[in-house]
């Protein structure tokens, strides 16, 4: 359906907007381009309808090299929806919807028929046809924006952050509505966004881009399960873990309340026994007042077990810890950046109150990805 073959866009002065893109999309697929701003996702999309022309490589739509097609003809066959909606304020809804049909010289009656038919797709009544864009709400306007891109029954539709300017509730309902519509009409969609939630919700496959290159191109599930690198992890992590679950904010809400502890004056053999019982490789060392002293792990015991006897003599005092009230998103960053496995949580008097492990974070991720679905289905 759509194929990128070694496509690059180099601007004057040698700046690579995108370099050496290779990908192929099937008919009826919902493809989402995602990445931080300036990653080249919009450029890539605009190359498909030649609003930006590639400097190297070729793009094929239905097997046809787009550079060999007249750009005006090409664009009339590709639906286009932009973020700021872009309805023409001086045209009625009908004129807006049927604009491409008019360009294609459809007779007026047929255009009107088609506009009516399209309105029913989004549950709007024909009396909207006579109205003007500013008389409609933002959500309705963007519905019309989408209809306009469907008018000539284009099989490929490009969408540049179409729901970005809408309020979250409207956006949510529009996303669902649109996804259903897309399945029903079997359109191929190329959709640009920077919102991971949106991408995961809508996409059949996601293209994650960075600095003009494809970092990962896969299904949402696969990306969540096997992020290609740290960048992808962070991209999913920050968006998904923090923004998706605003109700989980501080570490107390996710921490494990019963960390395995040992007192400084216990013997190493007691410590090893405890590790074996609880099946852990690290123990937090506390004193009688629950104040955190340090930690020992199995390696430290192994190295020094012949020379010393007590836990307090072996333990490492320097360690990373967090106070209660620390934000989860900061915690996540620590875990990702420093590759740590756990962080003890202490109160203002340095007393140990819990521990956050990677397992806790997995729970958060799990909840935020599949938790909602379980509730709705």
């Amino acid at each position, binding site marked *: 359906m759509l194929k990128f073959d070694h496509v690059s866009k180099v601007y004057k002065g040698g700046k690579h907007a995108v370099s050496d893109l290779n990908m192929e999309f099937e008919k009826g697929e919902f493809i989402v381009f995602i990445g931080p701003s300036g990653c080249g996702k919009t450029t890539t999309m605009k190359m498909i309808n030649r609003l930006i022309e590639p400097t190297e490589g070729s793009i094929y739509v239905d097997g046809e090299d787009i550079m060999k097609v007249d750009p005006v003809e*090409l664009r009339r066959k590709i639906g286009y929806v932009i973020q700021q909606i872009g309805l023409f304020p001086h045209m009625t809804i009908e004129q807006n919807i049927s604009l491409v049909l008019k360009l294609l010289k459809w007779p007026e009656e047929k255009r009107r028929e088609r506009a009516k038919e399209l309105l029913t797709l989004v549950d709007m009544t024909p009396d909207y046809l006579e109205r003007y864009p500013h008389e409609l709400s933002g959500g309705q306007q963007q519905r019309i924006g989408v209809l306009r891109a469907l008018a000539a029954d284009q099989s490929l539709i490009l969408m540049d952050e179409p729901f970005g300017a809408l309020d979250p509730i409207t956006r949510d309902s529009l996303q669902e509505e649109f996804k259903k519509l897309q399945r029903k009409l079997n359109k191929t969609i190329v959709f640009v966004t920077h919102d991971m939630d949106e991408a995961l919700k809508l996409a059949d496959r996601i293209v994650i881009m960075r600095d003009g290159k494809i970092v990962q191109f896969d299904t949402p599930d696969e990306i969540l399960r096997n992020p290609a690198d740290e960048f992808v992890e962070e991209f999913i992590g920050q968006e998904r873990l923090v923004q998706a679950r605003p109700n989980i904010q501080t570490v107390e809400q996710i921490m494990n309340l019963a960390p395995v502890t040992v007192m400084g004056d216990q013997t190493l053999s007691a410590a090893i026994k405890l590790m074996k019982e609880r099946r852990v490789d690290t123990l937090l060392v506390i004193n009688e007042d629950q104040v955190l002293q340090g930690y020992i792990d199995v390696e430290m015991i192994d190295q020094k077990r012949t020379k010393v006897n007590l836990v307090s003599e072996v333990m490492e005092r320097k360690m990373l810890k967090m106070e209660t009230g620390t934000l989860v998103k900061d915690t996540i960053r620590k875990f990702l950046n420093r590759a740590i496995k756990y962080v003890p949580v202490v109160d203002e008097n340095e007393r140990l109150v819990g521990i956050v492990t990677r397992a806790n974070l997995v729970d958060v991720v799990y909840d935020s990805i599949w938790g909602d679905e379980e509730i709705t289905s």
Partner: protein
Amino acid sequence: MDTMISFLSENGMDLLVKTWEHLYISLAAAGLGVIVAVPLGIALTRIKRIAGFIMGILSIIQTIPSFAILVLFIPILGIGKVPAIVALFIYSLLPILRNTYIGISGVSNNLLEVGKGMGMTNWERIVQVELPLAVPVIMAGIRLSTVYLIGWATLASYIGAGGLGDYIFSGLNLYQTEFILAGAIPVTILALLTDLLLGKVEDWVTPTGMKKLKVNA
């Protein structure tokens, strides 16, 4: 009052002819101005680099006293209506050109991109998007320009173009107040009526959606 009545009874027919001449000169100049300046203004939005230069030149011309321009054309075009129309036409250019340029430049880039992305040709975008959206601004320029021209057309009398200026200058030369008034009052009325009429035209050519937009805003 009596003098006015006797003036009208003596010169009534002549007054109508002069008014017509006056209108003819100004509207012909304004009409030519629209025909030249609107397309030129649109063209300049496509070549922004020289837009400033062209508009600069026109601004300089605008500062030349109108009387001087009228006289300047005598060696080339002689005297009569033609040089007057040409001189006034040159004056009408700047306001129309500038407003067209500003109006067209003011059309949101988004809309242009959507238009292009949907497969509109350059021409289709100008006719279906840019012009309708810029119409209020362009019309403002045309109105302003035409009203000015009606005023300046009085001077055309000096190069033998006729018009209501004839009365004003005769009146001034002969110390006849009624002649001055017989020239000045119709000119004022003409200017006001023309503005009113062009206001109607503006209303008529402005797309309905744009008018509603203004009411809401």
